[in-house]
């Protein structure tokens, strides 16, 4: 369950990027999570919820955009998307391919409600 450690890192980044006094205004933290980032989206959301309970971030939640695993073939140039992590080009079956996406684990945006 390394999602707990990942959630702690997210909170730290949120705290570094939101101006002091506005943490309680955070509503959504936008993430890009690759299919092979090694993180399970539901466990991550759950961990975040547990750690932020009774803190200034208690009204915020993670919004996760799942990023598919995509390859470009160095041989035929074809683009392959698969959900099993195989490095094989779907067109020519060669494995000389480059990973384009699917391994990322990034925070992209933090969305705050205006202070009332």
């Amino acid at each position: 369950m390394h999602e707990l450690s990942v959630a702690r890192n997210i909170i730290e980044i949120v705290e570094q990027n939101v101006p002091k006094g506005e943490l309680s205004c955070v509503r959504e933290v936008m993430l890009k999570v690759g299919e092979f980032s090694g993180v399970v989206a539901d466990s991550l959301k759950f961990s975040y919820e547990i750690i932020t309970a009774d803190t200034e971030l208690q009204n915020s939640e993670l919004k996760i955009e799942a990023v598919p695993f995509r390859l470009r073939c160095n041989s035929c140039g074809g683009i392959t998307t698969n959900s099993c992590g195989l490095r094989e080009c779907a067109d020519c079956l060669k494995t000389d391919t480059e990973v384009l996406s699917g391994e990322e684990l990034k925070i992209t945006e933090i969305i705050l409600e205006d202070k009332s």
Partner: protein
Amino acid sequence: MSIITVERKVLAKNDAIAMDNRDKLTGKGIFTINIVSSPGSGKTSLVERTIEKIGSRVAISVIEGDVQTDLDAKRVSAYNVPVVQIITNGGCHLEANLVKDALGSIDLAKTEMLIIENVGNLVCPAGYDLGEDLKVVVISVTEGDDKPLKYPKMFMNSKALVINKIDLLPYVNCKIDELKSNALKINPELKIFETSCTSGEGIDKWCSFVTGSIKKYPV
């Protein structure tokens, strides 16, 4: 409503500390290995066989990562090499800052190769760079030939694969060619070794690969 654009890797802090570790270690000419596997695949046994084989030529230090107990550190220290134990207290993987702290207890000037045994877990350690030169995943033939397909992330992120317990091949339903081809489907660049830490088979090849990776000891 306002939006703050961040665009930051979630594990950026770990990555930065890992880079510091790497600079420090490579700066001292130390070759660092991070061994990962499921519990019981043979990480500690591989460390023991490696020390037995090359420990008299290469100054090896070891960091042992475990959830509980210093049993592995005790096993390895019987081979008269410096060992530092990290106990994660439930943590399912090592992180770069734990290794950074452990480096403080190692005499780096007297180390040529650092071996880090990660916590036994085929999932969680994959995303955490520790600052190593070589991440090696160990799998034993008793685990079955489908593991690279079921735990692809670990095989994607490793540079070498050690298939261990090959002495047990006659007794288990594991096709080693299938295992290798599955691993290469996930990571075509993997260097693959076959070993038995019990009989010693294959340890020579593994050891000449790692010593060859230290610039001072050409094979």
